[in-house]
């Protein structure tokens, strides 16, 4: 658990359902624990996976999330956003390397460290984009369960730094979810397997390695589990290693082959996306087959499609260096935990990429035992998150997840050095305190800079928060401030400063150095609300306009018909004037003037309508078409636009 910064957490509500969410780089899932205590993934019409893809229109307004968005990835790559998780809580410098690989535009906002993704006319932060995915999961859960879902446990890679966890929490808030806890994905996997409840061999609990090779991240965690207690001994990994890298390597190989054939796919965004889809199809097929073939449309480079046939040996030769990159983090994590591979009791596989036979083989070699594969590696994390949500809300499980700080927490001292106050892998909740004084006479405040990281110098660590504790002016060295840092069970940092001379206590509001401030999140929530209001208004204007046009057309028909010929010229002039004001109201684009003008038109056409009806009856008496005329009236009414629920 990282240090998140914020105020006191609200006590969770009693009645509402809580779900577990695996917010993945490529796919996301939502799960819950059913009435019988069984964790279940909530599936939609297209299966359990919700692609973490968000599609927008040319203006940057949301079109679709999940499966329908994923289908647009190769149709409209500039407006279809995926792999947002790679950008969560990271600044422009940190993401520079991958921007070349993403077809959408990412900007650094002046004065803000967070990046923005440009889609059409709009700019979204990564948490806002992830919130669309979370909203989709929330909707799916509510649809499946028939009840509102307002609380969730969301998982993140164990290797995620603080800013990335904070961004994930912000995304939850933006999606209207109370985030009960951010849980490490591998820890969730162990919970799903119920490894914490297994009888242990040595009376010390079992030691479990969780090997998680997902779409965009690789994590290795060494856990110690016993008697309903889960402790993270060590975590490691690579936030830039996963199935996406395999896809890229495959696309790279195909692109190289195309170039050899004199075809240049660079700049062909849609073609590159088709190649990516083809690579994924090949990759999946080669997990169960020795040979696989796919066909790719090569337009506009050439009419003839490309037939790609790969053997598993080709595939494994290509991806071996990528798989090999998992080895060093595993060894480092074992060393951090003070263990040999032979000390491990269990090895668990997580993430779609662990279906690849080469990965399974390498893991078995590395840890000297066959890994667990009983639970679908795509679902296991979401199922574990659901278990944690159940633990935290129902009280029916005698289980407890003990979490640790993944990176040391320190404060800046003189000369830019770091004094560690809580070392990494400390169990939380945890506290630490330090005494501060002033170095200049009449200083009115003491600046405290909290950083996260293992290095000795502030510049090598990540800035977490910087805040000022105001003090009474007095000679240097005289003030004595006792500053208490509390990291609560949610990993949220609270700071209390006590003036040792007066005994006065002061709770300091800590502002995060990265990511979104509380105010920014509030503003986003508010703007989403404003937009929702605006959206409803726009929608009803469109509906009114459609209705107005139908009414005007019908009026025009009647004016030109037999009833119109008999109408008083003054009355006809009134109707023409009313039609003109309806046209003017349409031009304003506002729903209220249009509604008024339309009402006005309806009242002046009342007489005309009556005459028209009488004329129709008369005509029917002659031609026996009364029933038809009535039916026709009925049809017009039925054509009125239905109001869409927004």
């Amino acid at each position, binding site marked *: 658990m990282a240090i998140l910064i914020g105020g006191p957490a609200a*006590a*969770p509500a009693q009645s509402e359902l809580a779900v577990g969410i695996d917010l993945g780089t490529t796919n996301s899932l939502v799960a819950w624990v059913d009435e019988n205590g069984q964790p279940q993934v909530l599936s939609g019409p297209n299966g359990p996976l919700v692609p973490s893809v968000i599609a927008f229109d040319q203006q940057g307004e949301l079109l679709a999330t999940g499966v329908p968005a994923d289908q647009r990835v190769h149709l409209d790559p500039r407006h279809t956003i995926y792999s947002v998780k790679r950008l969560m809580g990271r600044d422009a410098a940190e993401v520079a390397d991958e921007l070349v690989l993403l077809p959408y535009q990412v900007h650094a906002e002046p004065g803000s460290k967070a990046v923005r993704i440009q889609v059409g006319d709009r700019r979204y932060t990564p948490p806002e984009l992830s919130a669309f995915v979370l909203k989709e999961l929330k909707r799916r859960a509510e649809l499946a369960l028939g009840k509102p879902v307002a609380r969730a446990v969301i998982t993140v890679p164990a290797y995620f730094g603080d800013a990335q966890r904070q961004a994930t929490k912000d995304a939850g808030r933006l999606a209207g979810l109370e985030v009960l806890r951010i849980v490490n994905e591998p820890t969730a996997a162990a919970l799903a397997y119920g490894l914490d409840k297994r009888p242990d061999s040595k009376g010390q609990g079992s030691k479990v390695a969780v090997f998680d090779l997902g779409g965009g991240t690789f994590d290795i965690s060494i856990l110690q589990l016993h008697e309903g207690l889960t402790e993270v001994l060590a975590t490691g990994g690579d936030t830039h290693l996963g199935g996406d890298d395999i896809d890229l390597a495959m696309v790279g190989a195909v692109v190289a082959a195309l170039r050899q054939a004199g075809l240049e796919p660079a700049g062909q965004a849609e073609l590159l996306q088709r190649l990516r889809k083809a690579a994924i199809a090949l990759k999946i097929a080669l997990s169960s087959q020795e040979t696989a073939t796919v066909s790719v449309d090569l337009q506009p480079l050439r009419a003839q499609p490309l037939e790609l046939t790969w053997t598993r040996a080709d595939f494994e030769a290509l991806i071996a260096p990528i798989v090999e990159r998992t080895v060093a983090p595993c060894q480092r994590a074992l060393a951090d935990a003070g263990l040999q591979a032979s000390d491990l009791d269990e090895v668990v596989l997580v993430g779609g990429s662990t279906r690849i036979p080469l990965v399974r083989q390498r893991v078995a070699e590395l840890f000297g035992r066959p890994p667990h594969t009983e639970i679908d590696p795509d679902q296991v994390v979401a199922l574990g998150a659901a278990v944690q949500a159940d633990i*935290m809300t129902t009280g029916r499980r005698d289980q*407890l997840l003990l979490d640790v700080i993944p990176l040391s927490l320190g404060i800046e001292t003189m000369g830019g050095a770091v004094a560690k106050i809580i070392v990494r892998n*400390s*169990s939380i*909740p945890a506290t630490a305190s330090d005494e501060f004084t002033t170095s200049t006479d009449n200083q009115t405040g003491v600046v405290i800079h909290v950083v996260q990281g293992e290095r000795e110098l502030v510049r090598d660590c990540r800035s977490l928060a910087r805040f000022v504790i105001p003090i009474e002016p007095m000679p240097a060295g005289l003030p004595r401030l006792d500053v208490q840092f509390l990291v*609560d069970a949610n990993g949220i940092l609270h700071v209390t400063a006590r003036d040792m001379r007066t*005994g006065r206590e002061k709770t300091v509001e800590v502002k995060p150095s990265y990511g979104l401030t509380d105010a920014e999140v509030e503003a986003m929530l508010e703007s989403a609300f404003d937009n929702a209001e605006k959206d409803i208004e726009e929608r009803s204007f469109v509906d009114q306009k459609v209705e107005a046009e139908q009414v005007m057309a019908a009026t025009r028909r009647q004016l030109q018909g037999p009833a119109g010929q008999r109408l008083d010229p003054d009355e006809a002039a009134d109707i023409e004037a009313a039609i003109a004001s309806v046209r003017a109201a349409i031009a304003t684009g506002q729903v209220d003037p249009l509604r008024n003008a339309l009402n006005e038109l309806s009242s002046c056409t009342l007489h005309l309508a009556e005459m028209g009806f009488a004329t129709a009856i008369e005509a029917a008496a002659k031609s026996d078409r009364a029933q038809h005329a009535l039916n026709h009236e009925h049809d017009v009414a039925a054509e009125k636009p239905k109001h869409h629920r927004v």
Partner: protein
Amino acid sequence: MNEMFLSTAPAGPLTAALRPYVIGDHGGAVLNRWPAPGEAMPNHFEVLGLKPQICLDEAATDAKVKALIRQLHPDRYLRDGAAMVEKAQKHTALLNDAWRVLRDFEKRCHYVVELAGERPDEVYKPSAAELALSFERNETLDELAEAPQQNRRALQSLLGELEGDRVDIREILREDAELWDAAGGDPAGEATARRRLRTSLGRLTYLDKLRARCKELLEKTVPERA
């Protein structure tokens, strides 16, 4: 010893710590009384109901601390309201903090010394021979640092030497710790043991700085091809 945490000084570790954490009516454990503002917080040994001794059964104590944390963890009190959660949080943090400091042998040595505060008569003064050796090793490291890859073997052998020294000093520290435990609260005996602890810990600090530098240089190198 702080009374509110240890009403009677027990022989066994942790049994006393269970005392203040009484079982509440909701089925969980709560601390019966938190120190009032201005009242001293119990030290880490007291929190865990341990005698201030350096040598202890780490595995057994770990299991007992965890059993207690399982009772007190805030996640168990989520349905009991914010006040209970906060209370549970404070207690769990207290236990976590105490065990973080005491779970490791060397950390316990440091903590025993730290509890006594600064004592001018106990300050570690390295001997002339120690200073000379430390100076010489630093000079060697400066030279090796100019070309770490070429000097990889020399760095590895220096690191081996330092690790060997560390094992030796750890052995002495073990004896110092036993001496402290044997003093059993006798002020003169404790002062003697503490002086020795400070010396051994001081020597380790010097050594660890050199080791850290050596390791850092080695990390910049890659193994030679066989």
